[in-house]
């Protein structure tokens, strides 16, 4: 995680708590899971199962399957197709076979 490349258009947006890789964060309520990860500064959200290289959300419309993460225990979900909910547990797939 580094400084985020993104910011919210809205000043002081209402917040929602989510848990990413075991750490609780407050993020704007309106975010998709992929947007939340970008907002929090996750440059990459998974390790490619073939090349092992880092990958990040690409198309944001469910086509490319680059944004796969684990959501509330369901593995390999497309982060771009899901809106965040309070205390949603998100795990990025950055280590090992995913």
């Amino acid at each position: 995680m580094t400084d985020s490349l993104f910011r919210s258009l809205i000043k002081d947006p209402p917040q929602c708590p989510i848990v990413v890789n075991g750490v609780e964060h407050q993020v704007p309520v309106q975010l998709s899971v992929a947007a939340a990860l970008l907002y929090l500064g996750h440059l990459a959200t998974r390790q490619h199962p073939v090349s092992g290289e880092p990958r990040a959300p690409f198309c944001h419309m469910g086509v490319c399957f680059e944004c796969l993460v684990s959501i509330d225990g369901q593995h390999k979900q497309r982060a771009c197709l899901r809106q965040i909910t309070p205390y949603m547990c998100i795990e990025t797939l950055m280590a090992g076979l995913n």
Partner: protein
Amino acid sequence: MDTCKNVLSLIPAYNQLEPYDWIIVGGGLVGASIAYGLIQKQPQLRILVLDGADTDHRASVGNFGLIWVQGKGHNFPAYANWSLQGADLWPQFARQLIHESQIDIAYQRQGGLEFALSQQHLSVLSEEMAAMAHHTQGGFQYTLLDRDAALALQPGLGESVVGAVYSPQDGQVNPLYLLSALHKANQLHGVEYQSRCTVENIEVLTQGFNVAGFAAKQIVLCAGLDNQRLGKQLAMHLPVSPVKGQILITERAAAGTFTYASPQLRQTAEGTIQIGGSHEHTGLDDRSSLEVMQAIADDVVALMPELARLQLVRSWGALRVMSPDGGPIYQHSDKYKGAFGVCCHSGVTLAAAHAGPLTNWLLNTLDRDQKILIEAMNNDRFSV
């Protein structure tokens, strides 16, 4: 033929004057293995492989990828011996093919398991295996496993598994890379390959044959389901019909999720789990269907419950090329010398045998015993 006009221009003009030694109709595993065997044995041969269109029915790319001896030919002694011989020739065949093509075809002879989900199924398997061992004079080796013994080999089996048959002679390969490697090795050896060439008619010349504008002294039909139609043109009865099989493929799973080869499932070298397979008589319809996909998923989840969490990534249906008794057909035309037909649904298991003894049969350089074995698999067995 019209369909080949566009490709004729790519072939040097002399080819049309000087007939090929062999034309092989069909660039699937059977055709490619035979071309590979022929060119290995007689490198001076001029061979042309004619292949179909991109979206033709292709049993070779729908294959499950097993080199499977268990149960093959339990009711057909020649086929039993032939399968066993084919599997035994595989290690040397694979070594050479990998060396020549530089393509890792992921061949492994780790042994195979067929699981029984009922005692009745287990006893049927047991009888078939005993028959196989008998036909091969003990050449075929196997062990009957009860549930505990099966679990010791493959942990994670579901409650409904009552036992299994294990044979060390079974194995697996990536059938797509096998086909790719054969094509590559053939081209390196100078075999010519022509895709998108649909063969409508075969013309019999005074000496040899004319196929889609190409002349050849000898011809082998390896056109899968089309062999029936093409065979008639060369006075050969090649009774084959389609049997659909549907296969599911999951995402990559952790290495070692499933260790052995099995007709029910196998883990590929990439890590995906490949799950098979249905037997449906639906004509030339090779589409996947909801009902059968669900049934296959039901079976595999019963077999190994932990697989339920894996995502299905691909599925496909393909048409097996089946003879009336399931065995291969090796036929020469009595009427037209130099015309042969090869039909089989075990293009992977028999690839090494097709590149080996079968090409000797085609070249008429086979010893007597082997000749008898191969000719026991001609179409005489279907005439009453």
